[in-house]
């Protein structure tokens, strides 16, 4: 409807200012300016986390796992948020926890997207037996309880950080596979994909150049959600004793180590849990807004 100004396709003599590459930043800014407060809140929180994660060694007042005081020192004074059960500075561990937990969750999610997304695209484009085989394999993986299977696999492989990332990424990639396959199927039928095929383009080009850019919005949104789920899975594993090993600060085991305090109304264990919740809330806010922007759901 708003296209009326372009109805005529007669060549326009004087080109209008081009929305070229230079103005992309301006466009992003324009979109951001119109973002709702929740999205802003989410973006700021995510930015803050990234800043803290990157700058942990400079920001933290004390080293990650050094004992710097007595156990359970109160808040304020030398230790802003007190100390934990061993006398490590809570604030420093929270800061390093951002780096470890967020970093690991991020790597895991990336890996699961590379794996699930790549296979999903291949299944959608190729169809046929490849699609069938991958689809069935994913069915099988999804019908095994994820957390318990992760526990078993980690027992077999040993719970190193690399194994943790790989195991969770593989198990989680099933969901990514399903999503990317279904959204890619919507794009595969498009004429421009057919045009690329008719041109004689090979699978990687079609995947990367024709399909991927068009399924990015739902994938990015899913990335945010999966990131949260991976985050929660890792903290659940830590809770069950198979997560990130000490003395690395990670929020899941920090909650678990101090959980007993909750029953006495002490908020210390709430801090790492709150940090988890805050980040996932922030990511979800941004994802929500992003989905809203890209799905064209108006009104």
């Amino acid at each position, binding site marked *: *409807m*708003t*296209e*009326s100004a*372009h*109805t*005529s*396709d*007669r*060549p*326009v*003599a004087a*080109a*209008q200012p*081009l*929305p*070229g*590459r230079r103005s992309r930043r301006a466009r992003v800014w324009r979109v951001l300016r*119109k973002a709702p407060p929740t999205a802003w809140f989410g973006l700021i929180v995510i930015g803050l986390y990234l800043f803290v994660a990157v700058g942990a060694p400079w920001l933290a007042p004390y080293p990650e796992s050094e004992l710097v005081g007595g156990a359970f020192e109160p808040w304020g004074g030398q230790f802003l948020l007190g100390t934990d059960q061993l006398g490590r500075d809570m604030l420093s561990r929270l800061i390093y926890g951002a780096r470890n937990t967020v970093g690991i969750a991020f790597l895991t999610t990336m890996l699961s997207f590379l794996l699930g997304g790549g296979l999903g695209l291949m299944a959608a484009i190729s169809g046929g037996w490849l699609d069938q085989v991958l689809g069935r394999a994913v069915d099988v993986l999804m019908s095994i309880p994820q957390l318990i299977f992760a526990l078993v696999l980690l027992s077999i492989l040993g719970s190193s950080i690399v194994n943790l990332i790989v195991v969770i990424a593989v198990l989680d990639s099933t969901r990514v596979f399903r999503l990317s396959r279904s959204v890619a199927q919507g794009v595969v039928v*498009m*004429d*421009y994909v*057919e*045009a690329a*095929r*008719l*041109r*004689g*383009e090979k699978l990687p080009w079609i995947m990367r*150049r*024709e399909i991927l*850019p*068009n399924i990015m919005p739902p994938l990015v949104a899913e990335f945010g959600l999966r990131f949260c789920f991976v985050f929660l899975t890792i903290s659940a594993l830590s809770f069950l004793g198979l997560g990130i090993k000490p003395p690395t600060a990670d929020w899941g085991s920090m909650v678990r180590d101090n959980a007993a305090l909750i029953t006495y109304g002490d908020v210390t264990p709430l801090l790492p849990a709150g940090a988890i919740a805050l980040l996932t809330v922030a990511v979800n806010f941004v994802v929500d807004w992003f989905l809203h922007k890209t799905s064209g759901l*108006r*009104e």
Partner: protein
Amino acid sequence: MNETAKSSRGARTKGDVLLEIRNLQIEGESDEVWQPIVRGVDLTLKRGEVLGLIGESGAGKSTIGLAAMGYARGGCRISGGSVVFDGIDLLTASDETRRKLRGTRIAYVAQSAAASFNPAHRLLEQTIEAELREGFRTKAEAEKDAIELYHRLRLPNPEEIGFRYPHQVSGGQLQRAMTAMAMTCRPDLIIFDEPTTALDVTTQVEVLAAIRDIVEQFHTAAIYITHDLAVVAQMADRIKVLRYGKSVEEAPTREMLTSPREEYTRSLWSVRKLGKQEQPGGEPILQVKNVTAAYGNAVRVLSDVTVTVPRGRTVAVVGESGSGKSTLARVITGLLPPIEGQIIFNGKALPRALKERNADTLRRIQMIYQMPDTALNPRQTVYEVIGRPIEFYRGLTGAKKEARISELMKLIEMDDSYVDRFPGELSGGQKQRICIARALAAEPELIICDEVTSALDQIVQEGILQLLMRLQRELGVSYLFITHDIATVRAISDEIVVMFQGRVVQQGPKTQVLSPPHPPYTELLLSSVPEMDPDWLTNLLARRKAQPEAMKAGDR
């Protein structure tokens, strides 16, 4: 016969004013900025009168139609003016008042009946929903009345069709069922929003006839919205031409057709005036020989099809949806390997499947699609779209590639400055030009054009067709032109292939195919194309009554 039809329509008594729209202003939201869509339109409709609203896409026709019900779509708002229906100002009335009018006193018939019927309920339930809700009739009475309406709308099996689900009924029948649904409460006003645009021409005739009759029988006022002047000429007492949300001119139907005042109005049927001198066929570049094809193990979509395209010529393939036109294109390109038969290109048989063809073969046959929106990757700039085939087939990069792109942009009559744009920043016609440039970038010998103009407005169609013809003259490229639109066929083709249900019904030079005597299907197809004559429909129906068997193919 002509006289009777005229008198029956002329005899309609026009009553007092039913609907009065004054200075209507409607805005639409785009990127959170409100921009005007309708800018001060006035409209008056008397009881029993049919007003045609005509204009290209973006003219604001549908928006005005919905505003006549006091309704604005999501993302739109009525920002000024008044809509007075039978003394009630719909814009200031309460939600409840408006809601109660809708479906009872003002009804709506949408463009796509298939999408507008709820797939979860049977037709009859949906037909009688409004009157049951308002308690006008008992369920039994309402059902009886609905069946009666189905009868009048000449739906097949009127007793039973209501118990079907929407997906079990064909498009033309759904459109009539939707008209029945609009009629159940005997409204004073019906808004018809392009009710036949999505239908084949042969089906369109039936629906038009049914709608016209029932509107007359119940003496209902109507606003008939369409982009097709020939169609509206059959339906409307008066016609109003819209452009950019403004009224261009308004006149009684006959007056509008014979002596339009505005240049713009004349341009609306400009494509019909395009013509091409038929060129005799030369050596064949493409021969489709006895091809039979099917999807999976399902029924055959093509049986024993033979088509020849002479070099440097345009062969038009016509037929309605489901006739196998597009499948023919898929078979030629190798997307759908045929079960039997051969594709001979430049005297050599092509491998059946796409994978077996080499890049040079692929280069020589290019394709242009119906919907430029889906044919262009929305995430690639014009530069990437046109540049890729140059790079892919010719291996050109850098300055050479850019020079070639610039050359192609000139060929399609577009400025170089467009190369950095994304398809979303182009109009429909511009997108289609980019598609043409992409095909030309491969330097093909044959271009398959699959309904390349049917998604475009008339005026834009003309531009595209002229471009294609010019390119043929300059570059000597051959076209296989798939379309359902006879006017387009007239404009561009040298030879015509008529297809029906997967078979070739008739094939030959344009003048031969278009002049009688015709085989029955060609006759039906040609006669169903609306003409700029207000009496065309009346006359056609009368003619067909005399030869009832000709109609059978159309009632689908």
